[in-house]
């Protein structure tokens, strides 16, 4: 066997071996009392958009795609989810301080307006997570409305 074949075989064995390493899934299945829907009244259509475009990485329940069963795609995915949840977790929105909630609303608005979220690498595969201009406008209108009413309260 030539050395290049040996290397290929070794790589294949490693690839098979890592398939058995599967980190815990981000699926708690629980509706938490700290969910953003318990903090604000969110219209149904906005909720649907959040769930479709954001919740995979920004909640405790991910809808895993087919490649999630294949390493090293899984690791890559879990890393994204971990970072996403640290940044913003819709399920734990109620645990944030009032001020942080406000700036989260602002940051959601900024990232949707700038187009930095949802991530291009994510919408590439998740076609239903792509937001049309109309959908973006719907979300931003709700965000503005909520921020304005909160500013008046304070």
């Amino acid at each position, binding site marked *: 066997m030539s050395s290049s074949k040996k290397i290929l075989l070794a790589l294949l064995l490693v690839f098979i071996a890592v398939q058995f390493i599967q980190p815990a899934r981000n699926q708690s299945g629980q509706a938490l009392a700290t969910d953003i829907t318990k903090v604000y009244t969110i219209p149904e259509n906005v909720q649907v958009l959040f769930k479709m475009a954001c919740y995979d990485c920004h909640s405790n329940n991910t809808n895993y795609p087919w490649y999630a069963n294949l390493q090293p795609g899984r690791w890559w995915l879990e890393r994204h989810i971990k970072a996403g949840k640290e940044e913003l977790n819709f399920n734990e929105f109620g645990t*944030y*301080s*009032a*001020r*942080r909630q406000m*700036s989260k609303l602002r*940051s959601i608005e900024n990232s949707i307006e*700038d187009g*930095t979220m949802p991530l291009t690498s994510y919408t590439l595969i998740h076609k239903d997570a792509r937001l049309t201009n109309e959908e973006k406008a719907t979300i931003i209108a709700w965000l503005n409305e909520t921020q304005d009413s909160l500013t008046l309260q304070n």
Partner: protein
Amino acid sequence: MKNSINSIVSVAIAAIALTACNGGNNNAEESNAASTAVTQTEQQANSAETVAATPINGVVDDYLQLKNALAADNGQEAASAGNELMDALKELGASSLTPEQKQVYDEVQEDAIEHAEHIGMNADNIEHQREHFDIISQDMYDLVKAFDGVQKLYVDYCPMYNDNKGATWLSATEEISNPYLGSAMPTCGEVKEEIN
């Protein structure tokens, strides 16, 4: 012969004039340097007298550094100032605070530390740093209001930033130096309030 005398004379005059000018310049520079040195010493003496090195002043210093870096369109420096501001905010939390100060700090810290951290992580995206700076400036305003012994600060307002929604920031100088628009519109804005 007459020509050459003429040219010698004019060269001589020119030489005298040049020397005189140089001398004058030198003197002016020297006196400028001297007065700058005096002003600096005075400023140092002043700041040493009025502003002690307390945790809140550490926070204010780092914030002002961040503000200056953004006004100079320097994302790298803004990032390192952001990281220092994050550390300074944590130090402030570990220091002894009055109950009123603690209340404001607790309300602000989670948010402020996160924004400082994000400014630190986005050295290559100054527009994003400015979005965070907008929000942390509000936190800073509330924070410094709760403390005594903070240096004199100006609350500045730029009506144009963020699609004309406007934004405020804190500055140590009365002169406007806009951290949101940077060199594009360095003097856009006005003083809204003076603290201390």
